[in-house]
């Protein structure tokens, strides 16, 4: 029983077993998982990758070269070359981010912590949907999400919201109090996007009772929160009739610019948030972070992720109670997830997303075998390029989203290519054992053992119902 539990611990809670890992976990599968819960367990160094401020600094340097032409500036052709270089560097930067993320996921012994990180990164999705966001997605995850996934939910929420990645992605960096002078002079105004998505996706959930008026009020409370840089300096200066050069210093910092903030007290969910404008948004977030509707939403999403697409009410209720009684302590919540009996059922109910499939294959067989060439393209061929979720709601977490005919065909083509890159000397049956342990059923064991070639055996193992699920 504990060998099966160890296989479940590595595959369903972790990101898939590395060779020998099922044995490591077999002594005490739950303890093996719990040991991964500690502050900083999901932190990575980011060595060789850019920070948010480095991204902004580079962008401003580029903008001064490729910006509007003035006397003595480079001609059109040179500008185009610069823009092409910028785009190329952005793509290469993203590829490096994807590879670093994959490398960590494929090699970390704390793969439950990494799954936990990925759950929260998806919950607070930002996506590389345009040139500006491409550079920010990696730093956002490293700086705003990773350090906080075993702290309190309120801390994670605040760090996610008040990061340039989120402020830019959901347009808050350009949202201005409608009655402020800059709004009137620059024909700019309120953008509700971030406020709406925080309420709908990150905290209370759709249909939980908040109104359009709550959204507008929350959006007004968020005005003034933006990112330092020349644009912000110009915008704020429009309200002063002068210059605000300090707002351009150290570009890429999140700051509160009072002249852009909508004056007055805000009423959200019936509660008045008055006082200093700078404190209003945080005050509202604090209410949202411990709200029962938030507890319900998070509990439901976690139960869906660890138990089943349609999770049993019993599991949701346990997680909800843990969230509420701990005040949203995510370390406590992670332990509650580990101790959900519903999540340890032998039946595999969760179909792996493409990313989960690829990472689990990389853990079992090595990244070279799992990917072969450029990783981002391999992810994209299975329709899940990292940092590129189709909407602020993040990636789908249910079987139907990932198991269509063409999706399964693409998976088969991928598996077939992987099987030809597998190391000689490892038999498909040994691979099956290492990767799935006792999760592999008799039917799959037989099919793999009877394959007509090692390549076919690997293909069957990778495409087996057990490896396609977790």
């Amino acid at each position: 029983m504990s060998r099966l539990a160890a296989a479940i611990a590595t595959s369903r809670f972790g990101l898939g077993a590395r060779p020998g890992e099922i044995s490591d976990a077999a002594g005490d599968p739950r303890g093996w998982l719990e040991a991964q819960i500690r502050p900083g367990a999901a932190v990575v160094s980011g060595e060789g990758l850019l920070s948010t401020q480095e991204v902004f600094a580079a962008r401003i340097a580029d903008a001064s070269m490729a910006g509007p032409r003035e006397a003595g500036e480079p001609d059109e052709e040179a500008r185009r070359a610069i823009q092409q270089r910028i785009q190329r560097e952005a793509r290469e930067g993203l590829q490096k981010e994807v590879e670093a993320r994959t490398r960590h996921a494929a090699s970390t012994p704390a793969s439950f912590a990494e799954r936990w990180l990925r759950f929260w990164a998806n919950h607070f999705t930002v996506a590389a949907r345009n040139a500006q966001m491409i550079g920010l997605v990696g730093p956002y995850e490293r700086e705003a999400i990773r350090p906080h996934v075993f702290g309190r939910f309120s801390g994670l929420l605040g760090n996610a919201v008040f990061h340039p990645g989120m402020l830019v992605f959901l347009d808050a960096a350009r949202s201005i109090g409608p009655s402020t002078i800059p709004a009137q002079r620059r024909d700019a105004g309120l953008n509700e996007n971030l406020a709406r998505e925080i309420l709908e996706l990150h905290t209370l959930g759709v249909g939980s009772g908040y109104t359009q008026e709550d959204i507008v009020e929350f959006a007004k409370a968020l005005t003034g929160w933006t990112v330092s840089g020349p644009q912000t300096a110009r915008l704020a200066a429009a309200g002063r009739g002068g210059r605000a050069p300090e707002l351009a210093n150290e570009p890429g910092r999140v700051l509160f610019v009072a002249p852009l903030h909508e004056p007055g007290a805000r009423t959200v969910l019936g509660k008045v948030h008055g006082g200093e404008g700078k404190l209003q948004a945080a005050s509202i977030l604090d209410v949202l972070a411990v709200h029962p509707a938030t507890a319900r939403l998070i509990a439901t999403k976690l139960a869906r992720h660890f138990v089943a697409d349609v999770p049993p009410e019993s599991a949701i209720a346990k997680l909800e109670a843990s969230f509420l009684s701990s005040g949203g302590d995510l370390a406590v919540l992670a332990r509650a997830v580990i101790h959900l009996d519903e999540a340890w059922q032998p039946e595999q109910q969760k179909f792996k997303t493409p990313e989960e499939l690829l990472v689990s294959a990389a853990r079992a067989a090595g990244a070279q075998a799992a990917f072969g060439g450029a990783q981002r393209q391999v992810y994209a061929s299975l329709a899940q390029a990292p940092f590129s979720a189709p909407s602020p709601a993040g990636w789908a977490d249910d079987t139907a989203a990932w198991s269509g005919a063409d999706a399964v065909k693409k998976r088969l083509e991928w598996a077939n290519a992987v099987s030809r890159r597998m190391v000689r000397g490892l038999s498909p049956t040994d691979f099956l054992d290492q990767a799935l342990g006792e999760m592999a059923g008799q039917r799959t064991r037989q099919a793999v053992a009877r394959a007509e070639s090692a390549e076919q055996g690997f293909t069957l193992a990778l495409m087996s119902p057990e490896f396609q699920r977790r």
Partner: protein
Amino acid sequence: MTMLNRRSLLLTGCAATLVSVAPGARADTGGAQGRKLVIIILRGAMDGLAALPKIDDADIRGHRAALVDPGAIKLSDGFALHSAMPGLAAMYSANEAAFVPAIAGPYRERSHFAAQDLLECGEISQVSADGWLNRAMLKAPGVYAAVSIGPSQPLILRGAPVSATSWSPPVLPEASEDTLQRLLDLYEHDMVLKTSLSAAVGADMIAGSMKADGMGGRGGPAQYVPQLEAAGKFLAQPQGPQIAVVSLEGWDTHIGQNQALQQRFAALDNGIAAMKTQLGDIWKKTAVMAISEFGRTVRINGGGGTDHGTGGLAILAGGAIKGGRMLGDWPGLKSSALFEDRDLRPAVDARSVFKGLLRDQLGWASADLDTAIFRDSVAAKAMGGLV
């Protein structure tokens, strides 16, 4: 003759990679003198008794009447060739083809993986990281080049750097028809995957990438002809390689094997003919050997097929082959003569034939044959007189 080089193959959209580490190496400076060797690996274990039934063996019908082709073409010594291979039968009559009806490597278990690996690395029990053909090329008297036709570099050519190119038809690496069938079986109780994969297969058939009869396409028999034809093109190039290795997948016929083998035999026969056409005059100096990792059970199983066995068939063809002969003894099909009361007992060690071809076809008469190339194989003497 077709002027075809690696570049033109690339330009037609085919994948080719060069694994050469002998810069500026010019092929064919050794003892081969224009002679060529083609090794065809029939992966999955071909049923040799279906390909070349010994129709005068009193026991064959008792074991497998339903698997003996009634139209088999009589050759000699009581053997007949399956009627789907008239080309090879004609070569046999023209003394350009020979058969080894009961052959196996030293391995006596029945795992495809282990058997193929051992066949290719030339070892007795422990799989090594390098193949015997790779080791042979390193020891060869001169610089040789090899091409492998198939989706990945086969173990037989892997190892220390030698001049070896690989090529596979452009549709690869799609899963074979056989793999698809096995997956559908595996998904018997999995409605999600079964439904999606069935739908995907259906969509493919509509798109025309797979033949509607359920065979062909995807690395199965439909690839045999293009693969063997490509081998011929490579070998026929000026300064082309001397050696080609071709992997043909899909011989594991546990169920309904008559229909499956009909198509595979025909494709193999057509493929060898296509290779001969590509080789032109070079055919006269070419020796082809086709072999599986092992044979199949003598008795028919419950599904109209056969299971993993031991003794199998090797096919030799080419203008260089001294053909029109059956090589090695026939162990007989009496139950008492069978290996473990189920398989054809091997009469010839596959390494003997490999060694004979290396020595007499390529001119590599080296003491290394019994030691470094096929370790501990003194007892498996090189078979003489093949060419």
